[in-house]
């Protein structure tokens, strides 16, 4: 399937370890994909074949599952993921302007990564922080009552680390 592999032999071994750890679970595919993404930051197409073999699925089925879910990334992402809530509660608190300002500040649109590889910007539909709208999430942390300035501070802080 692949003429050359973009993943190193060590990385391929890591994928095999994830497969071995998860394959006996009932309904193993999602937990397995989560484990791979937690490890690599994204799910490479190169995983499809070994996963399909281990779980007795077709490659197309694995591809179908990976691409069905917004959470799984099929391409490498930045060091940090910034998700901006687009849902109604945040809209009621001015998130549409916030989205625009964030895109301008970072110089990217949704599903893109900044040139320095630091931040990937994604839309999200509700973070469950609706009493403190508008909300964003940087990696695993939620932030409420956001303004473009506050988001810039959070991003700058993350970049500095």
């Amino acid at each position, binding site marked *: 399937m692949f003429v050359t592999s973009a993943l190193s032999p060590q990385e391929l071994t890591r994928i095999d370890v994830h497969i071995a750890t998860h394959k006996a679970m009932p309904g193993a595919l999602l937990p397995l994909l989560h484990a791979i993404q937690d490890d690599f930051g994204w799910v490479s197409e190169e995983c499809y074949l070994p996963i399909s073999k281990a779980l007795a699925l077709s490659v197309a089925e694995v591809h179908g599952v990976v691409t069905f879910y917004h959470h799984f990334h099929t391409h490498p992402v930045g060091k940090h993921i910034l998700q901006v809530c687009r849902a109604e509660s945040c809209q009621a608190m001015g998130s549409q302007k916030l989205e625009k300002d964030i895109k301008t500040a970072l110089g990217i649109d949704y599903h893109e990564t900044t040139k320095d590889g630091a931040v990937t910007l994604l839309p999200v539909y509700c973070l469950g922080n*609706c009493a403190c709208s508008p909300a964003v999430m940087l990696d695993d942390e939620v932030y409420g009552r956001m303004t473009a300035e506050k988001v810039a501070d959070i991003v700058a802080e993350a970049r500095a680390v």
Partner: protein
Amino acid sequence: MAIKVYVPRDSSALSLGADRTAKAIQAEAAKRGIEIELIRNGSRGLFWLEPFVEVATDKGRVAFAPVQPKDVASLFDADFLNNGAHALNLGLTEELAWLKKQQRLTFARVGITDPVSLEDYLAHDGYKGLKNALNMTGAEIVKSVTDSGLRGRGGAAFPTGIKWNTVLGCQVEQKYIVCNADEGDSGTYSDRMIMENDPFVLIEGMTIAGVAVGANMGYIYLRSEYPHALKVLNEAIAKAEAAGYLGDKICGSSHTFNLEVRRAAGAYICGEETSLLESLEGKRGQVRFKPPLPAIEGLFGKPTVVNNVISLATIPIILDKGAQYYADYGMGRSRGTLPIQLAGNIKHGGLVELAFGATLRELLYDFGGGSFTGKPIRAVQVGGPLGAFLPESQFDTPLDYEEFSKIWAVLGHGGIVAFDDTVDMAKMARYAFEFCAIESCGKCTPCRIGSTRGVEVIDRIIANKNALDTNGVKEHAKQVQLVRDLSDTMINGSLCALGGMTPYPVLSAMNHFGEDFGLENR
């Protein structure tokens, strides 16, 4: 003895800086050589006052809020540890009108206890429901749930006891309890609050469900946007296992019940129970045809109880205090309480648990304090992205499943999103279609195609809104009729609520706020 200081660990509190506040308090106490015991409790749900700090005194817990790191030194100067006078001193937490007016049953412990302390849970009536359940037959437990009048709090409002009874009646060895924790509706966060702030009540509720219907395995299908809930749940499950509340022979009985959290992956549709089950099985989250009902052929083809977090978290109090105790709250066929979530453009956003029957107006103004921006509240959306938009003329509707359905609206999961008078309702209608297009599982045509066509038609309505010539007027009317026809197809032809209810926000926006669609001067 060290004075107890409470700083919440709830996500919303963290989102407003609770961690920094906690650190500042600890550092300041250390600097002054004062010994304190810092407890990371759950949130009381007064989110406009987070970080909401409390100090234990002999009269009860005193609230200081909102506390930012810059306030900490002055709080110590004012001797806040001994209820000292300070601008942020709100008095006894229990006496705050916002909390006092509530009827907290499902949320009885939320904000009071340390979420991951089993000792705390037990000290606050925890596991009393399970103790009672273990002395009852499955049929008796199910009867108690049925008699309580509890209806599915996820939004569909189907009687929980009837669902359980179907699973109880299936004569097979393997059955499952699945908790739907894929809380994707905008304006809702009560599931998250239960999971982060009182996880044991959900674990206990699921265990009782397992004992009742004869299921030995439970799954919590948790949305991936809730990483804090994941950590708290896993920590609580490990503690429950270690103490014999989960696993083989729970509490020395003959029952086995194991519990596992499974992460969802950001698909709104997986909040629909059959697509949730597909997802748990490791497939694309596509909606299943019904029948068969999940109660008969659910997860891995086995009989499965699928309940929302709030439904399951309400089971312990029903089994503890009795079905009648719970049923005594509420109105009509809506029994018990509803944890309502105030969201969007609202001054005092937060969690209000009340018996069914309060009006929207009471919630928006008495609790909510009006809009955040101070402008008039023009519209509210109740029940998430598939709920209707309500104009001011409908604010006196009592929160009751049947009363809402009379005005072609839904209560859903109890989320209320307020919008001030700057909202453009044509844009909100467009967004409803857009959201449906993004989240459609693609299985049925009305939803998959209808949502995209809907966006296009609304765009044409917006573009032609102010056309004055006859041709423009005709074209506009044609597009409006097209939206109505399309909505009709989606309502009657979609497999599940995503396609079937997207017309609720669209048509309610059009019917109540016609001026935003250029319908006024026609």
